[in-house]
């Protein structure tokens, strides 16, 4: 049941000209418990229904009850597909995929207005973005999807004009919201330059758990920039994993403007081949009683080069600040390079800060110890890598488990 998502993704794209269906299938594979359903899926199946987006409001009570009765925790309930809802009586499926094509969308807003009943009954919300060209779009999260898991899949199309794509995405988390966003970036097409800018506004008294997995294999250049603006009394827990086999440049800017705001950041970067990755994290403490915890870990193999620069900036006369910045690297090859540069710029006295960095190789002494218990060398290395990643991934958080399930050893190696 543990399928290698990336392999399947590529294979499906190569073999199936109908890439919408391919994407849809990939999507299911992510949730391996539903994998068996895939082969049963036939969009032309007489038992499946395709309902026009606009006709959803005409759904009768029976159907609403059907959705309600079949919504269970951890079950696949809804997917968004190409302006159509598709659901099937066969396997409790209900889907909608949005194609984003040179227009601005605020589709969750639409849902909020029209379909909140539906959202209230669902465990998860799934969004697939099939991104064709230059985009600006926003997602506004209101009360009716409180405590929901929102999955966002970003799949880039090979028909991008001039192989260049720039996206701006705005995510607004409204007051008193607690939600989880689980976002995925995939791209397998060659020589594409991507520039993604994401703007998050966290309003008062909000908690956002934001999980990101980025897997670009496009032998291109990927620039991702995040801006987080924190208002009063909110918490952002942001965990991201970069499996990219490309040149990656990631910048994170977190502005802790309001009092009692917290930014907890954990990142994993896996670097391999000859690619160069550069990560810059800037955390600005601009109000009293703000906290930030940054933990960055990286695995480097082959001749890859990774540069991490972390900057914690505390403004003038700001009180009760707690800021931690820690980075750890594990080199799997003597030819790889890891360069950590954690910095703190403190302009205030009432501050508790810590910063540190450590880089090491796979240790022969550890390997000897482990082999003396009957484990072979490959198994030992695998266990060491997984243990290293477990510094971030070892948790009961279900969303991290989803990310973890996608991190197969072969992907890393």
């Amino acid at each position: 049941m543990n399928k290698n998502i990336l392999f399947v993704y590529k294979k499906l794209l190569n073999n199936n000209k109908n890439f919408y269906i391919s994407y849809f299938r990939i999507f299911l594979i992510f949730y391996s418990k539903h994998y068996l359903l895939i082969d049963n899926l036939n969009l032309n199946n007489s038992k499946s229904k395709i309902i026009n987006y606009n006709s959803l409001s005409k759904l009768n009570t029976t159907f609403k009850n059907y959705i309600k009765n079949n919504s269970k925790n951890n079950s696949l309930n809804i997917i968004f597909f190409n302006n159509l809802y598709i659901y099937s009586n066969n396997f409790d499926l209900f889907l909608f995929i949005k194609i984003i094509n040179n227009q601005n969308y605020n589709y969750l807003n639409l849902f909020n207005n029209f379909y909140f009943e539906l959202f209230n009954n669902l465990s998860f919300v799934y969004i697939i973005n099939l991104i064709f060209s230059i985009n600006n779009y926003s997602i506004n999260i209101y009360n009716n999807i409180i405590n929901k898991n929102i999955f966002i899949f970003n799949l880039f199309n090979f028909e991008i004009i001039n192989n260049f794509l720039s996206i701006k995405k705005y995510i607004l988390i409204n007051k008193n919201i607690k939600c989880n966003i689980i976002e995925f970036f995939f791209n397998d097409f060659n020589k594409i330059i991507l520039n993604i800018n994401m703007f998050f506004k966290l309003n008062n008294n909000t908690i956002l758990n934001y999980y990101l997995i980025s897997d670009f294999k496009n032998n291109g250049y990927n620039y991702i920039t995040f801006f987080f603006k924190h208002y009063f009394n909110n918490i952002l827990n942001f965990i991201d994993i970069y499996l990219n086999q490309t040149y990656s440049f990631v910048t994170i800017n977190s502005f802790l403007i309001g009092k009692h705001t917290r930014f907890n950041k954990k990142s994993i970067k896996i670097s391999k081949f000859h690619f160069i990755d550069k990560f810059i994290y800037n955390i600005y403490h601009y109000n009293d009683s703000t906290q930030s915890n940054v933990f960055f870990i990286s695995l480097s193999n082959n001749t890859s080069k990774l540069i991490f620069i972390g900057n914690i900036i505390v403004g003038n006369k700001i009180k009760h600040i707690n800021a931690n910045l820690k980075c750890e690297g594990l080199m799997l090859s003597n030819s790889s390079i890891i360069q950590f540069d954690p910095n703190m710029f403190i302009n205030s006295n009432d501050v508790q800060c810590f910063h540190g960095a450590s880089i090491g190789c796979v240790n022969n002494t550890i390997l000897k110890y482990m082999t003396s218990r009957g484990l072979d060398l490959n198994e030992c290395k695998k266990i060491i890598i997984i243990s290293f990643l477990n510094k971030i991934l070892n948790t009961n958080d279900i969303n991290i488990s989803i990310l973890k399930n996608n991190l197969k050893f072969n992907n890393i190696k």
Partner: protein
Amino acid sequence: MIKSNLLNISNLTTSFTNKIILNKLNFKINSGETHVIMGPNGAGKSTLANILSGNHDQYNISGNIIYDNTNLLSLSAEKLALNGIFLSFQHPVEIPGLSNINFFKSFLNAKNKHLKINPIENNDFMTLLNANLKLLNIKSELTHRSVNDGFSGGEKKKNEILQMLLLDPKFVILDEIDSGLDIDSLKLVFNAVNTFKNNNKSILIITHYSRILKYIDVDFVHILHNGTIIKTGDQALAYDVEKHGYSYFL
């Protein structure tokens, strides 16, 4: 009862960067026997332990070591472990990030794979683990911590014995197991070793002190000096060493 020969070392000479460490060493251990090797610092005790556990790449070696009818020097550390040799390290290694429980389960499954039996079931594993934790008076929280990471000296040594009990090997080498242990822990450790001991298990204890003999019955005591055994005797020999020092025997 005739005891079968488990380990036979003949004319073993090892050197490291042209310095001879073990010099024409001859030594036998039968099944069910417990041997103690004592000797001054630099006598070659830990080198012997390393070689017997398969970590012999860095040494120039001549002579033979036959373990369980197999040429021990032809087997890697991993294969030796799978074939029932266990080394309790003098300085157990810390592995940050890898929890004890995952490590234990990994090596038990490696052993099961070698024996061509199914991976251990969770319930069976926990039953086995809990029984041995109780025997060593180890708190279960310790199993969720990283292997030896931040452990006290005593906890590390107990953790080694715990691994020994889980793996249930045929031949155990305890390299200075008593160092870093207080009296209570020493009693617990040797209580566990005595529980483990039977007619099919052989034990080689490397130590500096005779105090361990209060807690375990041994068959032979050897004094190793300049890489060779200069005297063999029973428990009384260890007390003589304690009383007169090594120089008395040189």
